[in-house]
């Protein structure tokens, strides 16, 4: 962390630009969630419940995965989010099979603790086509070993987890091969007979829709996935005590029903949470008024433009001078290109996750990641443009008596300009595309409807993000064409 002090400086400067200055007098409780329905719902129930008790709340919904949410919490970018014991011991602490007291001790070391519990267990389970289960009399996971011809398809996470398919097949000596399939598609594939068995969460609302049977884990393979709120130790005592009122209020069938209302009936998590709090006499809250589609699109587009715009300006401000400086040193230039290329190969989501410990959640993280991605195309094209200037022209410029700086500014840079601009254009378009991932770190933008849409299998919502993003990319293309026309004589344009 200490090896990247410049990141912190840049971050600080950016924070000043963005106006994320000191916050209001009463610190709101920052409630996070991951990107699946149940996490959205539990976070929303928590948030509305706190608000009903007069405690201000800031929502950071839809953090892109366990690692991002956990790091955001540890770093203090959020105060709490819904989490499961099994996920913590397996995926985060990587100490499978530890007891509850060991888990508490391990969390304590990180400055974290578990609140509640909610009252249900959302364990992994094997789900099988109902008709098949009845006709073949399959009710336990161990029964599967007798049917080697069954088609298994699992979510990519389950295929790759240490407590996932590999360990399960070993424990039950299952002979089948499994393929990876997007979780949202797996149930439909089973219903249509293309798949026989998949992994499911025991509180999955979709289980109510399709004729699916959950198999009994007769060798007790799956660890408990008891639902809690994972919170920072520095959460005010009053808040923690208030939240304790939610303990043991949701059992598995209730959770399944709530999930179903969001994932299948198309209700918003906010409305369902509000109903739940009222029906269980916990609070009488009104669901938050959802902004209209137009408001959402405009708001998200504005955020998207801000993220990409700042990142691009920053990218130009760093990459162009760097390339100019290095143009005289070919070997150093090659090293720089190599480094920029290396950054480019880091998957965007991984880069975002890596930056959370450094700069926390939100716009800053997204802008820094986009900035790093914009470096390669700008540096590479600036250098290429400079290297391709006719050597005779450089010789003439020198021979005429231009100083190296004058030669660069008056001759080489103008001649490299078409290539340089093309690099900035590429960076802008990459940035607009990559910025859809910003929603995973709570930075908003057009990725937000896309992620929600993917999660809720709502195509309208996906398009609500995808179409403006595509239009932005086209607009960027046109804008750069105008800049090119304005700055470069026609015969030198690409």
């Amino acid at each position, binding site marked *: 962390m200490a090896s990247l002090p410049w990141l912190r400086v840049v971050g600080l400067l950016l924070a000043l630009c963005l106006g994320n200055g000191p916050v209001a007098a009463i610190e709101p409780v920052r409630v996070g969630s991951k990107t699946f329905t149940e996490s959205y719902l539990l976070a929303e129930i928590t948030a509305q419940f706190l608000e009903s008790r007069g405690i201000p709340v800031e929502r950071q919904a839809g953090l892109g995965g366990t690692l991002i949410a956990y790091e955001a919490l540890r770093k203090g970018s959020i105060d709490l989010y819904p989490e499961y014991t099994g996920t913590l011991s397996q995926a985060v602490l990587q100490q499978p099979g530890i007891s509850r007291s060991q888990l508490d001790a391990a969390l304590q070391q990180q400055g974290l603790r578990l609140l509640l519990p909610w009252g249900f267990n959302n364990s992994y389970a094997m789900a099988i086509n109902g008709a098949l289960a009845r006709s073949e009399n399959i009710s336990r996971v161990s029964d599967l070993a007798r049917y080697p011809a069954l088609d298994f398809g699992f979510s990519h996470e389950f295929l790759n987890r240490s407590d996932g398919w590999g360990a399960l097949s070993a424990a039950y000596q299952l002979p089948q091969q499994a393929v990876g399939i997007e979780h949202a598609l797996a149930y439909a594939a089973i219903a249509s007979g293309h798949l026989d068995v998949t992994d499911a969460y025991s509180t999955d609302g979709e289980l109510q829709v399709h004729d699916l049977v959950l198999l009994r884990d007769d060798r007790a393979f799956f660890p408990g996935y008891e639902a809690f709120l994972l919170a920072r130790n520095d959460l005010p005592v009053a808040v923690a005590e208030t939240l304790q009122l939610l303990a043991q209020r949701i059992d598995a069938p209730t959770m399944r029903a709530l999930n179903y209302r969001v994932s299948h009936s198309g209700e918003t998590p906010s409305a369902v949470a509000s109903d739940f709090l009222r029906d269980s006499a916990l609070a009488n809250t009104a669901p938050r008024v959802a902004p209209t589609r137009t408001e959402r699109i405009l708001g998200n587009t504005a955020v998207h433009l801000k993220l990409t715009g700042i990142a691009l300006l920053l990218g130009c401000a760093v990459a162009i001078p760097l390339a100019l400086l290095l143009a005289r040193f070919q070997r150093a230039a090659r090293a720089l290109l190599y480094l920029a290329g290396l950054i480019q190969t880091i998957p965007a989501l991984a880069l975002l996750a890596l930056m959370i410990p450094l700069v926390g959640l939100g716009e800053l993280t997204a802008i820094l990641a986009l900035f790093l991605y914009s470096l390669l195309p700008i540096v590479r094209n600036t250098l290429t443009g400079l290297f391709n200037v006719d050597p*005779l*022209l450089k*010789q*003439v*410029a*020198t*021979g*005429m*008596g*231009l*100083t190296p700086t*004058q030669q660069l500014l*008056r*001759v080489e840079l*103008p*001649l490299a*300009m078409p290539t340089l601009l093309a690099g900035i254009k590429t960076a802008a378009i990459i940035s607009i595309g990559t910025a859809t991932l910003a929603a995973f770190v709570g930075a908003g933008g057009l990725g937000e409807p896309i992620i929600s849409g993917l999660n809720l299998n709502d195509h309208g919502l996906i398009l609500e993000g995808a179409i403006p993003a595509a239009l932005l990319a086209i607009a960027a293309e046109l804008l750069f064409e105008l800049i090119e026309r304005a700055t*470069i*004589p026609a*015969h*030198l344009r690409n």
Partner: protein
Amino acid sequence: MSSLSLQSVSKSYGHTTALEDLTLEFPDGRITAIIGPSGCGKSTLLKLCNGLVRPDQGEVWAFAEPLDYRELAPVRRRMGYAVQGTGLFPHLTARDNISLLATLEGWESAAIEQRLTELMSLAQLKADELQRYPHQLSGGQQQRVGLCRAMMLRPAILLLDEPFAAIDPITRIDIHEQLLVLHRAEPTTALLVTHDMREALRLADHLVIMDRGRVMHSASKEELLAGMDAEDPDRLLHTLLAQQETCS
């Protein structure tokens, strides 16, 4: 002492000797043609004069001082420079090509205008031609723009590196006239590198004939042609190269 001279200059590229122990003075206010077959070292000689090439041994003197290789730009601005294929900057109009150095020197726009008008009339360039980019001009026009650019700052020395090599023979006669007009109006110490004896005889007052890195003859045109047949310039050059004479 003349304003441009070489003192015992040698230059090699790896094992190849480009110039060997050269001592030359170029007469002030005159056009000196440096002529010889390809690879004789004439282009290297020119680049030594404005410091584009640095000698292994010996010194280059300009304006009564040896060249200061740490700070070449000021002295280069006192030497106009034009090359084969013109070397005009494609992103600048003819006008901006010509006035670039004056702008960088911080000339007032009125002074720039006045100088442009002078050069335009000497080089017979029209105002609308000045607004064009180099690729929109004919080869001859490009050459004239190149000469005007080299002369913009009224340099005392003019270095011309085969500037007319790529021009058709008819246009070449016109542009030769142009150069003579310009030179008569502003007599600089001019060095013209060429492999064309006809061109050398037409333009130069003084000739330096080179072969394989050495100077075979250096003399005024009259001296050199005394008793020679100048009817066939190519044959003349051949004859001169065949004579084992050293620098005069």
